[in-house]
């Protein structure tokens, strides 16, 4: 007998959410969604959650199971049991619960809309379709598999502390158009995406890659946008300056000059940014934690320089 510990919430009856336990024998091969349906149909009809296709296509049934977002229809219930034969179900994170496991997706969709998720073509429509080569399509193939389930948005570490972040789903969708050979607004797109709340606010935690039920893997897509932004010369922000300073440091010495990178990331004319470095700099100086003033190169640094040259970097 398995225990389903489900976070319940009905603001019309009780302002605070609470956990309720349901016991269920998990039938062989039943998905988590099958189990939820069984609970709703036989134990408590008031249990609320979203569902539709049961085939990992529609993206409706994402919930948190044992603390991590997943598609309920894509995983077997028995595989999710913890050591106490329990599965804890909660609504997706980073969005407001409406009732039980149903959350308000409004900010999620607002952010998708913000990245202009439609083609802005280069020229007038041709008589037939706009063709892409296999190579051109492969650049946007992964991001176009996104089913908008919100699992990545739920577990994004930056969103937990900053609502302004566009989030992994919208940025993966943005890559779908930044990388599209038929789109005419690449520069404008990467300029917009380099603003605060965009690509450079991604904290590299890869939670989104882990939660994504499809090959969309948002963090990988975010990195692709970063590369395009740098190629397009969108350098006037801390994220781009950081990437360039970092790479140049490795080019010069084979390793990182930690004294230079904070200053170069802020930008030498960014007075408030530079002033913000003083408290940490002072603390580290007093403890002798400042990296060596004379920066040493690695042994055989010439070979590293050769690689940079060979790749025109």
């Amino acid at each position, binding site marked *: 007998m398995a225990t389903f510990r489900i976070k319940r919430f009905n603001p019309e009856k009780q302002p605070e959410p609470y956990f309720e336990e349901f016991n269920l024998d998990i039938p062989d091969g039943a998905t988590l969604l099958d189990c939820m349906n069984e609970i709703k149909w036989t134990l408590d009809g008031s249990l609320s959650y979203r569902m539709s296709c049961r085939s990992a296509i529609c993206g409706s049934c994402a919930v948190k199971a*044992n*603390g*991590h977002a997943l598609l309920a229809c894509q995983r077997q219930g028995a595989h999710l049991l913890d050591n106490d034969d329990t599965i804890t179900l909660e609504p997706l994170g980073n969005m407001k619960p409406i009732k039980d496991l149903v959350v308000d997706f409004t900010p999620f969709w607002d952010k998708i809309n913000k990245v202009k998720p439609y083609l802005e073509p280069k020229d007038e429509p041709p008589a037939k379709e706009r063709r892409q080569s296999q190579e051109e399509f492969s650049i946007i193939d992964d991001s176009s598999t996104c089913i908008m389930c919100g699992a990545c948005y739920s577990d994004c*570490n*930056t969103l*937990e*502390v*900053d609502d302004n*972040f566009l989030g992994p789903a919208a940025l993966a969708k943005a890559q779908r158009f930044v990388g599209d050979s038929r789109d005419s607004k690449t520069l404008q797109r990467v300029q917009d995406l380099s603003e605060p709340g965009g690509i*450079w*606010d*991604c*904290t*590299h*935690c890869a*939670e989104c*890659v*882990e939660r994504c039920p499809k090959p969309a*893997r948002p963090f990988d897509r975010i*990195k692709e946008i970063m*590369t395009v932004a*740098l190629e397009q010369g969108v350098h006037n*922000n*801390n*994220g781009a300056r*950081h*990437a*360039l300073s*970092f*790479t140049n*440091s*490795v080019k010069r010495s*084979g*390793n*990182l000059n*930690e004294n230079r*990178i904070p200053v170069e*990331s*802020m930008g030498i004319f960014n007075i408030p940014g530079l002033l*913000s470095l003083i*408290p*940490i700099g002072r*603390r*580290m100086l007093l*403890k*002798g*934690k*400042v*990296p060596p003033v004379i920066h040493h190169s*690695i*042994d*055989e640094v010439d*070979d*590293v320089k*050769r*690689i*940079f040259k*060979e*790749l025109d*970097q």
Partner: protein
Amino acid sequence: MKFALFTGCVAKGATRELMLSTTKAAEGLGFEFIEMKSASCCGAGVVSEKSPLLADALNARSFSIAEKQGLDIVTICSTCQGTLKKTEAHLNESKEYKEKVNDILEDGGHQYNGTTRIKHFANILATEEGMARLKSRIKRPLTGLKVAAFYGCYVLRPSENSDFENPDNPTGMEDIFAALGATPVYYPSRVKCCGFPIVMMNKDASLGMSGNALVDAIDNGADVVATGCPLCHLSLDSYQPEIEALQKKNQSIPILHLPQLVALALGYTPTQLGMDSHIVSTLKINQILSGSAPSSH
């Protein structure tokens, strides 16, 4: 046991106490760590923002150096570990890509064959052999010390590149703490991000992440947080006085590098391990171990 030590940049720069304590821990454990002095920076997932191929070529060159020595690589930084493993995955994904990278390396006399394994220090210890070695060499069990692990994202995610058995709910670090005689503290934030990668871009969000993690560790009764990543250490220790969530609680918590914690149990003194160079005082740890201060409740 002999390994090629990929030090990473931060252990030679802002957290030199990590390098110091790694040397001591290796000595105490009877490991031979040969420093890879001609290896370049792993790129920390930042060089690959500029050029993924460049980042992979540089790391493949480092792998080649260890291959020539016939040694497996040990890392002491979660970010190095994850970044190197990502390159390794790219190289093994496609034969054409591997050949392309090897063409770049050729003029420098390097070639990547894929014979060297890349392991984080924690993953060397969290094996049957590592644990047996650890347990047999402990001189000063860390009895009574409640230690909260902070893994560092890169060593866990993407999970296909992680050496931890269950990257969503790993126990490797906690198993090490228990072997050292300490009491592991489990808390949800142990597998989350410290926020360091965006401290230059969005400091409020960055310190929000580190603050939430530290409050979580403290609320779950930790005396100390131990991390396998020097970037997490910078975030959790060096930035700690600026973290608003802790200021509100009027609390602080010492942060140790994993090799410091291990070497403490192997009998080295806090000064030998550079514990006096931290921003947040580590004196409490000594007091708890010597019985002169109570552990957290």
